[in-house]
């Protein structure tokens, strides 16, 4: 149906577009500021205030050279990719199995299990008890300390459960009549039907793991070569905090390292660009994926 464009609707659309454009610009300004600052002259950057619209002084890639010449950054990228890939694949798989299990009406433990899962969303053991569990598993300073705890996420299980519950029971019954077992029903029949939800969970897992630095800072204290990118980036950010550079030494010969200010911006770009680029590709699934699990028919 083609909607008639009345005068009031035209005004509404114009205002709507204007506001959305303004909102979009407001979202883009900080990104643009960081990008321009990252290629600015570091000394001029130190003396600047407000939004940077164009590079200050002669554009320079010195900050990027410093960041990318740090071997730990490349190593961090590799580690993050491992954590992201394992978490996205294995985590989604386990989440799907758990979601399917607790969504089955004929499964007696479905409700207690759901309650148990919900309980963990509200209460957790806290840092030290969790650390002690990880330690007693003997996986401190190993990659498993990052991968294992992140495999299951209660929120994702609930989303997956809701998505399965939206599907008509006839799909499963027909499959059973055709002799399909639970695994075949889950992976070949039901999962493809909730593809948007699966994509959203994968994307959430990827973003979550990409941005994750805290568990590594706790569980990988002695193995810097297993640190994810974000932890290395965070260290670089703090290390290059201009206040630290200025006070790290009391000697006048330790001149102010202006590039430290620049490096902060470069670190931000290097750490966020890949995920920013990937995000739009999964965007079309987002609304469908989240609402699919939230609407009761």
């Amino acid at each position: 149906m083609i909607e008639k464009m009345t005068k009031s609707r035209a005004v509404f659309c114009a205002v709507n577009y204007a506001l959305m454009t303004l909102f979009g610009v407001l979202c883009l300004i900080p990104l643009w500021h960081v990008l321009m600052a990252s290629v600015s002259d570091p000394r001029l950057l130190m003396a600047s205030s407000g939004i940077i619209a164009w590079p200050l002084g002669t554009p320079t890639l010195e900050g990027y050279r410093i960041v990318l010449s740090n071997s730990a950054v490349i190593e961090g990228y590799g580690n993050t990719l491992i954590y992201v890939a394992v978490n996205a694949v294995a985590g989604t798989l386990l989440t799907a199995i758990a979601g399917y299990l607790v969504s089955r009406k004929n499964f007696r433990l479905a409700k207690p299990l759901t309650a148990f899962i919900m309980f963990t969303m509200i209460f957790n053991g806290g840092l030290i008890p969790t650390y002690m569990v990880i330690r007693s598993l003997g996986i401190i300073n190993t990659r498993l300390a990052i991968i294992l705890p992140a495999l299951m996420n209660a929120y994702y299980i609930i989303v997956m459960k809701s998505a399965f519950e939206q599907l008509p029971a006839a799909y499963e019954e027909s499959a059973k009549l055709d002799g399909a077992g639970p695994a075949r029903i889950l992976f070949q029949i039901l999962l493809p039907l909730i593809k948007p939800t699966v994509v959203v969970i994968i994307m959430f897992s990827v973003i979550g793991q990409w941005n994750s630095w805290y568990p590594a800072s706790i569980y990988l204290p002695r193995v810097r070569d297993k640190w994810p990118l974000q932890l290395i980036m965070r260290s670089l950010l703090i290390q290059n905090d201009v206040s630290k550079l200025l006070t790290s030494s009391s000697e006048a010969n330790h001149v102010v390292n202006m590039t430290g200010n620049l490096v902060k911006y470069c670190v931000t770009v290097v750490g966020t660009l890949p995920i920013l680029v990937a995000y739009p590709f999964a965007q079309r699934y987002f609304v469908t994926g989240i609402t699919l699990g939230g609407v009761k028919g």
Partner: protein
Amino acid sequence: MKKWTTLVLAALMLVGIVSCAAADTLSYTVFQQGDDVPNPVEAYEVSGVIRYWQDMFDIDMEWQIPPQGSEAEQMNLMLGTGDYTDIMDMSFNTESLSTLCDDGSIYDLTPYLDTLMPNYKAYLDANPDVKSALFDDTGRIYLVAIVQENPKQWGGLVYCRDILETMTGGNVAFPSGSEQPATIEDWEYMLDLMTQYFKAAGMTDYAGLILPATGYFSTGELISGFGIGGTDYVKADGTVGFGIAEDNFYNYLVKMKEWYEKGYIYADFASRSQDLFYLPNTALTYGGAAGVWFGLVQQLGGTMSLPEYGLNMNVLPIGAPADTANGVTAPIGTYLAATRATTNSGWAISTACSQEKLERILPALDWFFTPEGAATRSMGLSAEQGAANYEEYGEKGCPNGARENGSILWTAEMNTNTELGQYEFSQNRLPGLVVDYATRTCELSADGVDYTALGHQTWTQFGNSAVYPYVVAFTPDEMETVNRLSTNLQDYAHPMIVNFIMGREELTPESFAAYQQKLHDLGLDEYLTIKQAALDRFNARAAK
């Protein structure tokens, strides 16, 4: 057969010797912060000094460097779970060392001083100020500390001399006749010229003087010219004072209000609460739009200039101005970097370390308090110590890169190896005595001035007798009360001070008296009593 038996026996013997030698090396895990070292693990592992030291004492360090920004959390986690490393850098510890010892987390080192650490003990005995900073009230010590032989002041008030030169055509004439601004009148002369300069340059956002958002430097700069300290300070008679509650603070407020009205003080100072006091509004300071601020030694001279943009700055250190109109002939001594050792700066040995390992590591750490060890930790290896055997010295052109025997001059390695952060590690991370070294040629700026020395001399010219030592120890109960009262006092005082200066609150002797009374009502007397008692105990330890 005989040959074979001999061969087998010899091989066994060799294996035995090798394994004995290997077993003799003791390994230690070390929790060590590395926040200002770009590649801390690498820096510590390749350091010639560390390797030389390890070889000398048959020890091996395994470094656990917490991620930057997570040091305190890692420290707490370690203490909370009992997962201690053998050695712990206590920079981020917030717990009292005596509590940690009583809880069985770290060793009390007092019984070992005589037998295993004679050089450390001798140094402590010879330096009561260091001793009182490191021993607790029960006479115990828990730390092998980093002790500064002569700490340099790292920052203080600075001013742009170039502005004055420009405005007077090189004929700067302070009313006091001094070369540098020394009195309130001198400062008014200076601030007036600066304000004229900024206005003539068409600047809209400028600052003659940048005050902290609280309206005063709590560390005592500027306010000391009025005969008082910022918050805690020690008066001439040895009693503890609270600067912003003293009578002379009224004179300070009157003067700041006057300067604010004349436009000498940065108009927007009160809104800059996120700025660090030693790094105020960089857009103004680095943009050439500020005249006087709390600066750093690294900013002295022409380092802030931007000649390609016509900005030629000459930043010089400046002392507080004496309020001669109110009878103050010289500022009181409040310079900051006077403390030579603290209980947050050094290594504690955890109970995870066995007795055997403890008895090996303590003499090794004691070596850093010998003249040779102190020079080595501070300046690098000498040729006599076999600097040539250590890779990075070779890379830097050893033997020329090595320290001369018996000299405390820097080695080429220490001069140039900033990438690995050797300087920071040796100066600020490794326990032992940081020797006072001679100025290096590379410390001189292009104009040949030793700004480190100039800054130190200017900022410390009035001494530090009025400084309330921040190493004074409180009991947990005292600490709780002091923190609570301090928060209450400052929460009330800071907005009032800003309002007085900006004219939002009427400033009269009566209103100031009401302000003082309110501070007393908020518990100022109790606060000062606790502070005084702690200071007295501290001084008593030094006298023992």
